[in-house]
């Protein structure tokens, strides 16, 4: 191997503790000029903490950071920006009601005296757009841009500040496979021009595709360093989780029965009054899992809210078990046997200041045996909680512990326990495994399949294509509020689904040749 280019960023023995957890322990890394270093690890492994330290949002308890060989103390983001570090966060750090240009110059404003002058900024943004093929309109409002475009704005934001070390935190989580390819092309352009990139992900395929170096973190420690040439998906997965993992979910043949959930031409409006679900029709049968794939923000959230009564159905009909529940109250829909695992568990699924026991009766508290008339039966609530904690393997000190004290995976298990124990005819699970550890993911996947095998109809909405493909019996792809087609899961391919997620028409999608992962797709952008 020839001599490596200079080390632009080095971390030595970084340790960072939070109350009750050690987020990073003796972590060291080296980033060379023009290189893509992938940081791999599952949720909670300490990747983001490490990056936030390098970016100056946190400060390490011990250890040191060197930039271009020089030890530095990065106490704030402005410090790291000054030293040429740019970061694209997992959740974009853009102000939706600002324009692209305003977002880019924020904190590095140009102007005459105290007054803003956006013209200078526009000029530079155009230059950067052209140089790195990052096409955006400086005067568009960020809230009108697609996720992919917003990501480009983030990258320009870093480049505008002359960053040559870029940290990308889970950049592909919200992209279609094709958009991911476009992002990879951008990364390659950047590194070709001398920039260095830290690429954080938990997706094995992507890491293997883009990285020059791979570093794996587990529970705050570096557990391995390797290169794509030496590693395989399986070896990386084992390193990441610490044991061998099943990459596929085992499940038997589905035995679909009668339709349980029927949607007819459902349209839904979002908070701003715009139509975000455009005439969706579908059926979910008893004993099958229908997966809805799609990039976030294509109407899945609103569709689920409309089915569960949380958002008005603008037109069309929703039936559960043949009963018309269009625009019925959430309570009535729940009582027809519809269980719902909401997308945002902290915000919508749990009351964090309540005990585990109270959270386990959050939507059944009013009925016997938990209440007689309006009087609560504390004994019954507690017994119920102890039963479910046992059955669903919720790791909690007691049923009376506040749910806020639980880990992400256990919080999700509380919701799963509450919803599945009702043994309803329909389960709607939205992003059921987002951001939780692999052990809990496996457990929850098995529970969902068990639910199907029990004869419930399952509607699974997930942004993780792998999850959709692993669990579903049929897959519907949602794009721009429409479902173009529903495919049998057995025959669906990643590429095919990726194209559908990007808005390609189903007819030619199946035949579209995909060349070395860099498909040239005529992607129709949202909202422009």
């Amino acid at each position, binding site marked *: 191997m020839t001599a490596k280019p200079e080390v632009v960023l080095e971390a030595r023995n970084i340790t960072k*503790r939070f*109350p*009750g957890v050690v987020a990073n322990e003796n972590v060291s890394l080296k980033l060379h000029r023009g290189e893509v270093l992938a940081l791999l690890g599952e949720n909670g492994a300490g990747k983001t903490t490490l990056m936030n330290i390098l970016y100056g949002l946190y400060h390490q308890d011990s250890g040191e950071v060197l930039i271009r060989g020089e030890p530095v103390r990065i106490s704030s983001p402005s410090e790291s920006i000054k030293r040429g570090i740019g970061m694209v966060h997992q959740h974009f750090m853009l102000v939706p009601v600002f324009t692209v240009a305003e977002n880019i110059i924020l904190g590095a404003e140009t102007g005459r005296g105290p007054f803003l002058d956006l013209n200078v900024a526009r000029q530079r943004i155009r230059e950067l757009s052209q140089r790195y093929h990052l096409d955006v309109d400086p005067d568009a409002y960020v809230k009108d841009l697609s996720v992919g475009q917003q990501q480009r704005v983030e990258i320009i934001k870093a480049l505008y500040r002359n960053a040559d070390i870029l940290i990308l935190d889970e950049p592909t989580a919200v992209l279609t496979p094709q958009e991911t390819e476009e992002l990879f092309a951008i990364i390659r352009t950047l590194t070709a021009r001398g920039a260095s990139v830290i690429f954080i992900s938990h997706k094995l395929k992507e890491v293997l595709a883009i990285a020059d170096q791979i570093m794996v973190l587990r529970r705050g420690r570096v557990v391995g360093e390797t290169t794509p040439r030496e590693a395989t998906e399986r070896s990386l997965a084992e390193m990441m989780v610490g044991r061998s993992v099943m990459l596929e979910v085992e499940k038997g043949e589905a035995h679909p029965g009668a339709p349980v959930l029927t949607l007819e031409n459902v349209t839904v409006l979002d908070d701003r009054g715009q139509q975000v679900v455009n005439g969706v029709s579908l059926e979910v049968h008893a004993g099958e899992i229908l997966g809805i794939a799609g990039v976030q923000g294509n109407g899945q959230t609103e569709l689920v809210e409309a089915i*569960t009564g*949380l958002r008005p159905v603008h037109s069309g009909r929703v039936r559960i078990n043949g009963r018309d529940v269009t625009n019925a*109250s*959430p*309570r009535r829909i*729940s009582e027809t046997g519809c269980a*719902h695992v*909401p997308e945002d568990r902290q*915000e*919508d*699924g*749990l*009351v*964090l*200041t*309540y005990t585990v026991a*109270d959270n386990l009766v*959050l*939507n059944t*508290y*009013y009925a016997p045996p938990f*209440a007689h008339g*309006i*009087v*609560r039966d504390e004994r019954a609530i507690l017994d119920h909680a102890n039963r479910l904690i046992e059955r669903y393997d919720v790791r909690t*000190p*007691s049923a*009376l*512990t*506040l749910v806020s*004290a639980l880990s992400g995976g256990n919080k999700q298990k509380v919701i799963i326990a509450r919803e599945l124990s009702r043994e309803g005819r329909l389960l709607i699970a939205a992003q059921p495994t987002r951001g939780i550890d692999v052990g809990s993911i496996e457990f929850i996947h098995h529970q969902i399949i068990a639910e199907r095998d029990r004869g419930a109809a399952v509607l699974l909405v997930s942004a993780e294509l792998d999850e959709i493909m692993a669990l579903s019996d049929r897959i519907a792809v949602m794009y721009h509020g429409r479902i173009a087609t529903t495919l049998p899961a057995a025959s669906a391919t990643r590429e095919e689904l990726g194209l559908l997620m990007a808005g390609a028409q189903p007819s030619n999608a199946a035949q579209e040749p995909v060349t070395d992962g860099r498909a040239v797709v005529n992607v129709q952008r949202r909202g422009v």
Partner: protein
Amino acid sequence: MERAESQSPPQADRLAPVRRLLRAMIVPVASVAVALAIGAVIIALSGANPLVAYSALFEGGLGSGRAIGRTLEKATPLIFGGLAVSLAFKCGLFNIGAQGQLLLGAVFAAFIGFSLQGLPAVLHIPLALLVGAIMGAVWAAIAGMLKAFTGAHEVITTIMLNFVAFNLTDWLADGPWKDRSPGNIVARTPAVAPEARLPDIAGVPLGMILAVLAAIAVWWLIWRTTIGFELRTVGQNASAAKYAGISVRRMTVLAMVASGFLAGLGGAVETLGVVGRFQPGFNVGLGFQAITIALLARTNPIAVIPASLLIGVMQAGASRMQFNSGVASEIIDVIQAIILFFVAADSIIRWVLRLRAEEGEQVTLSSGWGS
């Protein structure tokens, strides 16, 4: 950042409730102590002797049977007001309108009290109390509906409704319901019938008994019923409540109605128990005190009773303090404000005493602002 090992798992031992109770009392007690100390400094700076002032204050509030009677009299509407505010807090609502609701309750209780003559007390009293409470509930329901259906924040609407209530009740007392007897020239209603006046039961005013019963009822409602669970769920996390099938709108209106009912009942009790008629200027100052009490009691309905008694002592003794020591009675407003500051900003006292933050349900009011 400072607290490293705060996540020790709560054990389920038998003394836990007692310890929790004691822990919960530290901040309020310390707040009162600090406020009295600061008050003493202010008194001393204005050239009076704080000891003379405070001993007169407590003599006036506790020194004799009569003083205690007046303390109870002062504490009674405060309990109702404190309960009203606490109950709304549980649902994440800030009812600053207890004052207006109390006025409506007071004037309508007076109306029932003076307009019906010859009704036996067993009918007249409950009727007048009920009508007063319902009018308080109606007044609060306006703010509840506005919040539920238009999103107008209850802090502003209830304050505005307080102003409207003052004007409305003044007009009632000066117009249609004015006392037209020859001796009277000012705005006030006729005296309520003797049958409608609240008696003492075993030496304790009926109003006080009702207040204590109300506190127990509110405690039961909040902690032992499904309605209470719904109210608290909406207060803790409105979004999760919605997902759990609880109608946030319905609960918002219900919480305001219940809160206004309590405040209106307080007004009715005051009219029938103490004042004997409705007269502008006789039922003022409750709104802000009720907030202090609710926060001092950490929105716990039972704790509202001692908190009200404490403030009641200060109010009952204020005149004697001014009489004996020349310290203006407004000092008790200052002391109350300082108490409020320390209980609200409890992190100061926690920091001083090295206490850790309380776990469990929190009062969050700012989430519904303007949206």
